[in-house]
């Protein structure tokens, strides 16, 4: 079942076009991986899905992106409500310089989700458990989040993202700043999360895409070259460019 349907998306940074007519169907409760060489537009596309491109003054998005029949690329869209539904995890772990508890409670607070302190405690605990971080930090929730290790920080960011129970989580190279063990933990986590949420992950690592995703899209020079089931993309791609990239001939 399709969760997000993008049609003919074009993105411009000033006069430079970054995405060309991208159309893609992202299925619900699956992991969709976007791969491609640096500067190919995969992160730009990801940022269209929660309107993070709004932050960049010179950025302009054209085309239609629908989530459950709601047009995302519209002036009338309530961006705050959208971002409550579409969480994001960034390349570099970016916990706030606050306590672990406050980091997770940030989203529920600004969206007024918890009615009482007990409810908030419950949300924080559940989110940290889902992010597989609870056992490591349950005794030091009032320590500063930036004091954790890189992998723990990234899981804290994931806990922060799922604290508002989003339907979609976008991940922008979430493991590129982490060591192999932390990476394995995050990948395991992604596998667990997909039971409840739709995940779109941008990654540089093709083995990661192959491990975690059900669908894969290959971007090159701002165009979506090929999109399909991960198995097919990695074993038997239709397109020669995809074949070359997968086998490491360029990129």
């Amino acid at each position, binding site marked *: 079942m399709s969760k997000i349907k993008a049609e003919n998306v074009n993105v411009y940074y000033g006069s430079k076009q970054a995405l060309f007519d991208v159309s893609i169907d992202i299925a619900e409760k699956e992991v969709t991986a976007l791969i491609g060489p640096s500067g190919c537009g995969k992160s730009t596309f990801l940022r269209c899905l*929660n309107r*993070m491109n709004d*932050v960049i*003054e010179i950025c302009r998005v054209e085309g239609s992106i629908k989530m459950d029949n709601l047009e995302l690329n519209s002036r009338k869209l309530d*961006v*705050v*409500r*959208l*971002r*409550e539904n579409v*969480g*994001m995890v*960034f390349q*570099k772990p*970016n*916990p*706030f*310089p*606050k306590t672990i508890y406050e980091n997770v409670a*940030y*989203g529920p607070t*600004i*969206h007024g989700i918890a009615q009482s302190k007990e409810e908030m405690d419950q949300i924080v605990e559940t989110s940290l458990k889902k992010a597989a971080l609870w056992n490591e930090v349950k005794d030091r929730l009032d320590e*500063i989040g*930036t004091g954790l290790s890189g992998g723990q920080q990234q899981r804290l*960011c994931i806990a*922060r*993202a799922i604290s*508002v129970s989003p339907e979609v989580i976008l991940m922008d190279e979430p493991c590129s700043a982490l060591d192999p063990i932390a990476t394995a933990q995050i990948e395991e986590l992604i596998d667990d999360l997909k039971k409840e949420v739709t995940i779109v992950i941008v990654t540089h690592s093709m083995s990661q895409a192959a491990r975690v995703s059900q669908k894969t899209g290959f971007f090159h020079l701002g165009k979506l070259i090929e999109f399909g089931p991960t198995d097919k993309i990695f074993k038997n791609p239709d397109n020669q460019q995809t074949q070359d990239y997968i086998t490491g001939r360029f990129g």
Partner: protein
Amino acid sequence: MNLILVTFIILLAFTSYYFGRKKALVIQSSQRLTALPKFYGYYLAAWCAAPALIIFALWSVFEPSIVKTFILQDYTDQNLTKNELQLIYTKVKALAAGTYTGNITNFLDESANKYIQLKGIANSAKVAIILAILIFSLSFAYRSVQKNDRMREPVEIFLKWVLFVASLGAVLVTIGIVFSLLFEAIRFFQAVKIFDFIFGTHWYPAKTFVRDGQPDPELMKDAFGAVPLFAGTFFIAFIAMCVAIPIGLLSGIYLSEYAGRGVRKYAKPIIEILAGIPTVVYGFFAALTVGPFVKEIGNAMGLEVSAESALAAGAVMGVMIIPFISSLSDDVMTAVPQNLRDGSYAMGATKSETVKKVIFPAALPGIVGSILLAVSRAVGETMIVVMASGLAANLTMNPLESTSTITAQIVVILIGDQQFGDPKTQSAFALGISLFIVTLLLNVIALSVVKKYREKYE
């Protein structure tokens, strides 16, 4: 004479630089250089200028006192006090320069001739010695250039010493100023008890003025109570911060988070111009515009308002301080990493929530630091208070009355005629050192706050 000598040394140093470089190029044709050719030039120039200039400086420092000793030797049998000897020496110098107008005794005349003679000898000796040193050090350096010794290390060591001497000078001057403050303050506290100074509530130094002899100790006890000044200083600084902190912080937040690039490009320099306006201009703005304005408004509301009110001075001082706070807090908030902003926006936070919950707390140490720096600036501000808040040291907490500050009182004490040994004059040093201690404490606190939070947040 001295000017010619120094110019000569410097010109010679420049010449030897070019000479050294050229020599290096000659050496290059036959053997490998130990450094770039310019180092050969620096080496020669340093050896040329440094020893000669050092000797010149030492000579200039010690020559006058040596000459003085020689002149005053003739007067040792007359049993004169130190001050009288000093007076004689001044007369001798004036006579030698032809500007003496008093009675010329034979004895003085003789001394003056001796002075001129000594000066002449000293001058010739100086020139001779410096020329000798120049020849010696240049030939030593030249030999070493000819042998193609290692050039880079000596030049680097020389530069290190030049930098060391420069910073040593700055440190010594600071220590000197602090000690001169301290010693005069100690002399003041011999006349006035430190307890009376710190806890006394009457500041009226003019009371102690007597034409001759010592002032009455009872009067002294009640004339130098600094409490009204401390209170006034902090009161006016407080009013200033009430104006500067809200406006400065809000404009800092606007500039760093809300303003587009176009607005920021023009608004920031304009706000910073405020910091460049001389404080005396703020002073007459406060005294001639804001003061009467406050008085009129107060009178219209039926309040008793002094024309020189703490409110006017404090408000204008606050305006003066706005750019410190706004510019510094803008800088620290701009320096908060973009990924924290992204993280907050991606959670669905609005701009104001992001500012309030993420950016501001992350930038807090820098903001606190900038506020404390601004406070120490407000405490040390003089001109606005002198011009706009009067000079009478009232102990009051009413912003509509006139009050005075430590700095303004230092001005009052030191303008006009004063005797140096007088406690009234020395009280300026006591005030100065208390001000110094207060601002030093503020700066230390500011730095430690910044450091503590930085450790916590990074």
